[in-house]
């Protein structure tokens, strides 16, 4: 009888062309789960301290999740992991589509690459055989085109993950694409793949995935699906900014139940937030120095969520997802279709640059997906460049004649095209805002908004200090997909995990900014839980349904047969978090240096808009969080005692 995981990984040494299968002992899965936990175990132990992220010693891993293929829902997330060239720390990126089960269908929980190939290659696995094949015919091709070419020569049902030209050109904000332009975008791991001369993985397996009790998993899935299918009629898209404005005007916060967000996701996808988030103060505007009044409903109306669903030809479901927040949209111009632009993309290339031109956002979405460049970091870097232009640090001479003013969509398109092709100023900007600021000098560093080099996502930490915390304390800095005050409310973990604090259904906004132990407990719980999800291969959006409606822990127990409850799984999450932090310490990272830019914590505070006068005491928050893990509260480093308590062998 199986336990949900395959019990094997594949390691590929690209320098010598060796491909080796390795059996992973059961106790590793019991300690770390599969997915990102397994990856943390492999990378911590095998990447030598101080390894060059773009050198042969770095290891790039592609991992599936423990629950993928077991009959659970929302288990279609795969992750790419490695030492990030953007932050120098632990790097990972998460993506949906159909690539996650493809890894397990080949018989593996993960595929890990080290070394550097002397020529462009791709890994092909089919019918039980793995081999490196010549990729010179697809090198230089964009991710969508190359995927089609690679699939031409393979049996039906094969899946591909690959880099576009940005990864090949070692852009530090490049990611890895699958399923026609879905992106594992963050941490700059596309550049690691490019440095290894590895264009793609093409997987065509049909292995069965054995579990402890599939009937029990299905029973849990059917119950969960009932919540997902509950979809009452909802307001038209044009009302969404008013919902956001109402939330802004209220002195209190109504704790959110994730069912509401589920309804929005099913109707529109993440784009449901496009206007609402601006109005409530969740979206950073004008490179984080503006506010909602600079990009009010009359300007943002072009990104009304209905605009996107009107162009949607079909909903897109990732593997095992009953919700379907994605979509394939038609468009005019150079490209005929694109994955529905996500909220992050729309805001990074829209409100952050004061860009009202939605057609430009559609174009940039597809162009960046094809290039394999992160839309969040690209948008944030463009906003940084516009501010540099406004301040006279960049001139028309530097931009090859581009009038780089706020909201000039033609100039934004031209600039992104230059970043993709690494031409002129684009070459400097293609490695993200921190690297660009170092090259430009002249005090431009003060216009970058990042954590440890990773551009922040489109969730304003001055509106939800929980974002400030997780942007700053995670071993993968600058990420919005781990925790926040809002996420803790929606995860509703207190309903399953003993000892976690319940959230009051109504509270004053000012209380969000009070730093106390309970907030630290909540933050730590989010991090631990996301590690469990990333070990299981589950989707964060699914988990927003709330712990009583999506049976994460119950699925894991039904899949593995382990005698574990929610508290034991949360301890695994704690172990993974500590191991990833230890990875960073091993590689010389000072965790306190990941603190986000002053602008993002309200130093100085904004003088108007939804977050007027708000400042976040990030130093105190970071200390409190580290204390929850038993890490040193001054340095943020896990000590020997903490490692021993979690049974982690120090490297």
């Amino acid at each position, binding site marked *: 009888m199986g336990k949900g995981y395959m019990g094997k990984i594949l390691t590929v040494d690209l320098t010598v062309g060796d491909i080796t299968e390795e059996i992973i002992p059961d106790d590793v899965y019991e300690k770390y789960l599969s997915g990102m936990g397994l990856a943390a175990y492999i990378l911590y132990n095998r990447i030598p301290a101080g390894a060059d992220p773009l050198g042969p010693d770095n290891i790039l891993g592609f991992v599936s999740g423990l629950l993928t293929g077991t009959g659970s829902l929302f288990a279609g997330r795969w992750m790419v992991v490695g030492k990030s060239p953007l932050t120098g720390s632990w790097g990972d990126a998460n993506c949906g589509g159909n690539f996650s089960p493809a890894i397990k269908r080949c018989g593996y929980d993960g595929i890990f690459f080290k070394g550097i190939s002397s020529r462009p290659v791709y890994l092909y696995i089919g019918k039980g055989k793995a081999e490196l094949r010549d990729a010179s015919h697809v090198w230089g091709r964009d991710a969508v085109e190359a995927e089609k070419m690679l699939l031409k020569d393979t049996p039906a049902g*094969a899946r591909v993950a690959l880099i576009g030209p940005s990864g090949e050109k070692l852009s530090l904000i490049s990611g890895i694409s699958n399923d026609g332009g879905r992106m594992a975008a963050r941490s700059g791991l596309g550049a690691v793949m490019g440095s290894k001369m590895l264009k793609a993985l093409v997987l065509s397996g049909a292995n069965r995935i054995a579990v402890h009790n599939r009937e029990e998993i299905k029973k849990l899935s059917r119950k969960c699906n009932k919540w997902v299918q509950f979809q009452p009629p909802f307001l038209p898209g044009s009302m969404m900014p008013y919902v956001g404005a109402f939330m802004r005007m209220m002195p209190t916060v109504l704790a959110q139940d994730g069912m509401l967000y589920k309804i929005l996701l099913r109707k529109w996808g993440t784009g449901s937030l496009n206007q609402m988030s601006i109005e409530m103060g969740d979206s950073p505007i004008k490179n984080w120095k503006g506010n909602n009044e600079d990009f009010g409903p009359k300007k943002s109306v072009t990104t009304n969520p209905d605009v996107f669903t009107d162009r949607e*030809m079909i909903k897109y479901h990732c593997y095992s997802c009953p919700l379907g927040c994605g979509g394939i949209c038609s468009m005019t111009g150079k490209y005929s279709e694109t994955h529905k632009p996500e909220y992050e993309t729309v805001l990074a290339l829209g409100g952050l640059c004061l860009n009202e031109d939605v057609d430009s956002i559609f174009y940039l979405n597809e162009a960046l997906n094809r290039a394999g460049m992160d839309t969040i970091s690209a948008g944030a870097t463009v906003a940084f460049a516009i501010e540099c232009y406004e301040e006279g640090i960049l001139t028309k001479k530097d931009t090859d004649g581009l009038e780089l003013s706020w909201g000039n969509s033609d100039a934004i398109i031209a600039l992104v095209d230059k970043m993709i092709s690494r031409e002129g100023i684009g070459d400097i900007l293609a490695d993200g805002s921190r690297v660009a600021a170092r090259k430009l000098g002249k005090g431009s560093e003060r216009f970058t908004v990042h954590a440890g080099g990773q551009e922040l996502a489109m969730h304003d930490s001055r509106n939800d200090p929980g974002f400030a915390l997780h942007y700053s304390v995670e071993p993968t800095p600058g990420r919005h997909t781990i925790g926040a005050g809002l996420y803790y409310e929606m995860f509703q973990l207190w309903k399953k995990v003993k000892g976690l604090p319940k959230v009051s259904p109504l509270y004053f906004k000012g209380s969000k900014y009070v730093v106390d132990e309970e907030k630290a407990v909540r933050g730590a719980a989010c991090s631990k839980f996301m590690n469990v999800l990333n070990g299981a291969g589950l989707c964060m959006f699914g988990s927003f349904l709330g712990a009583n409606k999506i049976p994460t822990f119950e699925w894991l127990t039904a899949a593995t047969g382990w005698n574990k409850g929610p508290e034991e799984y949360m301890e695994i999450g704690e172990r993974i978090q500590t191991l990833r932090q230890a990875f960073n310490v091993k590689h010389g990272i000072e965790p306190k240096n990941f603190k986000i830019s002053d602008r993002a914590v309200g130093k100085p505070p904004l003088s108007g808009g939804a977050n007027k006068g708000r400042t976040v005491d990030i130093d105190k928050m970071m200390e409190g969080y580290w204390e929850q893990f038993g890490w040193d509260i001054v340095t943020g480093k896990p000590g020997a005692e903490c490692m021993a308590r979690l049974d982690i062998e120090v490297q």
Partner: protein
Amino acid sequence: MSYKITDACNGCGACKKVCPVDAIHGDKKKPHVIDAELCIECGACGRVCPREAVQDGFGIVCEMIKRSEWGKPVFDRKKCMSCVICLDACPVGCLTLSEAVPKDPHGYPSLNNEEACLGCGFCAYECPVDAVTMDYDRRGGGRG
């Protein structure tokens, strides 16, 4: 548990040809062998063997069935959640998603390549909401 080929094999090669994962090897007119590591237990080898030389994982001898009578998946659109688990479960990629229609933006699975379908039933087995069933009776028999 893997399928097995017994001494009754005459090496006709029909099983080797139908196996979707190349798990069967053996020279023409010589006894064939199933690689237990590669076998996915789809049972196609057993359904094509004219000599009743294939046993399933429990040691039960497989019966030869005309390919036109193999079970085929039937999809219940009302139960289906468009999650594509069935498409992924199929070892030969013979399922496809429909286009969206004006009142329903989600795609739904259907049997795209009937000739390639092995009647293995993995799509039905993996569907968590019982939206896929195997029609074994439609053509008068098949794998139970």
